[in-house]
């Protein structure tokens, strides 16, 4: 080999390593931003205090989610990008719908779990989904293979420490006692954890075969809204459900807004799953509980007048959550592990007949050479306008409830959210053009 050939090989290897490091950092940043936005999604729902059934609340939130899952991708890349992705990997429609169904059933189970055993016991049980995600990532997608004991300790230890922190926070923030059906509630919470942990199999499957997260969520939401509607009608009946929705006109906007904010968090969670895998992406985005508690304490005054031991639990739980996040964030995948990810991606590509160069380019956060640039059409703008109009109509009907609300901390937290959104979106755009 000549000296110049050796130099160019070394330069290519250095470029590849640098690109890989940038994508890992992007995934970690996305996971952290996901936690902040998923946690903030709880804020609008706290404004809802009238007696609507939990299933109706879920259904209205999912409706907001549905609108956001179509309008945001149309706004960011255009639906032509979604269509192009589906043409390349049509099998992922089934996977996305399946993931949406898993989410809806898990969400309904959490309602029963909170009712029967209270949030303090239920939350840590379903938060175990991150441990199951690590297991599926290792078993099916070569995650944490050849990762070394330090990374294993960082990821698994970090996830366990976060579970312990989540337990403390849940105990501190719990205001609801057990409802007398503890056995049933424990099963419901564990079931939700298993369903959510398994939901990440379709996520990883999609991103290993190159699908853009913005395309995946548009089909995910059909499973989500379809299953949630079926459950709501099944549990409540069509006519009573309709009457309940009519009587809830004044709060529909707040619930749909919660769904909209949740989608922004979920989009970053999808990018985290894509660039750092599910074993690291899920624990990072599970930091949402910490953010939810910040809103609860500082904006809605939830722990006002509680004992000093409660505040100690909050401080201890928050520190543990942050420690876990740091441990996972500093355990990014090594070159050897990423080679194993690529092997899993090639296996998926072969199985589903997806072009190898497309899979490789998308895993690298790029467009394939034969892909044309996507643009927004009139249809995309109409979609965005229609979704915005629906929100505006319900905002016109919305009532502002009389409740404890501190505007200063709300403004600070909102500024922090917007800053994180700006930094992460800019990083995603510069590094991957949202691929």
């Amino acid at each position, binding site marked *: 080999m000549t000296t110049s050939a050796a130099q160019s090989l070394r330069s290519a290897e250095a470029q590849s390593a640098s690109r890989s490091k940038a994508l890992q950092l992007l995934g970690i940043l996305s996971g952290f931003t996901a936690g902040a936005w998923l946690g903030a999604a709880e804020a609008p729902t706290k404004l809802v205090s009238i007696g609507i059934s939990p299933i109706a609340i879920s259904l209205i939130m999912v409706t907001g989610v549905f609108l956001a899952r179509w309008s945001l991708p149309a706004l960011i890349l255009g639906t032509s990008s979604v269509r192009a992705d589906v043409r390349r990997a049509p099998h992922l429609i089934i996977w996305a719908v399946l993931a949406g169904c898993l989410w809806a059933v898990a969400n309904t189970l959490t309602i029963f779990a909170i009712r029967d055993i209270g949030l303090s016991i239920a939350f840590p049980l379903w938060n175990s989904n991150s441990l199951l995600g690590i297991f599926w990532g290792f078993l099916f997608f070569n995650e944490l293979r050849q990762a070394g004991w330090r990374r294993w300790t960082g990821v698994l230890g970090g996830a366990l420490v976060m579970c312990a922190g989540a337990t403390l926070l849940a105990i501190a923030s719990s205001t609801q006692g057990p409802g007398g059906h503890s056995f049933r509630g424990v099963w419901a919470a564990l079931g939700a954890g298993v*369903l959510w942990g398994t939901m990440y199999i379709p996520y990883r499957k999609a991103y290993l075969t190159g699908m853009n997260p913005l395309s995946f969520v548009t089909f995910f939401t059909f499973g989500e809204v379809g299953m949630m509607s079926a459950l709501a009608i099944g549990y409540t009946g069509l006519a009573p459900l309709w009457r309940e929705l009519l009587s809830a006109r004044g709060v529909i906007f707040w619930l749909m807004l919660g769904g909209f904010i949740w989608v922004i968090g979920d989009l970053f969670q999808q990018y985290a799953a894509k660039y750092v895998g599910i074993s690291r992406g899920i624990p990072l985005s599970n930091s949402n509980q910490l953010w939810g508690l910040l809103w609860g304490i500082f904006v809605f005054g939830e722990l006002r007048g509680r004992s000093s031991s409660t505040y100690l639990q909050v401080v201890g739980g928050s520190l543990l959550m942050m420690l876990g996040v740091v441990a996972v964030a500093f355990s990014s995948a090594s070159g050897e592990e990423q080679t194993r990810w690529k092997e899993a991606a090639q*296996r998926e590509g072969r199985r589903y007949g997806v072009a190898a160069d497309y899979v490789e380019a998308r895993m690298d956060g790029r467009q394939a050479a034969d892909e044309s640039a996507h643009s927004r059409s009139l249809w995309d703008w109409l979609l965005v306008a229609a979704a915005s109009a629906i929100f505006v109509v319900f905002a016109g009907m919305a009532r502002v409830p009389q409740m404890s609300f501190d505007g200063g901390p709300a403004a600070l937290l909102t500024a922090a959210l917007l800053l994180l959104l700006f930094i992460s979106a800019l990083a995603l755009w510069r590094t991957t053009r949202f691929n």
Partner: protein
Amino acid sequence: MDTTDNPKANSSWLVSVLTDVQFWVPVAVLLVGLLLLRSID
């Protein structure tokens, strides 16, 4: 664990999905979740 290796190129993506072991894991979990929900209710 390599559960999806398939040397023959599948002509139909639907067949590829239905013969993928990894597909049946979430399907089974979903069915168990629905049964659990029914039994709880």
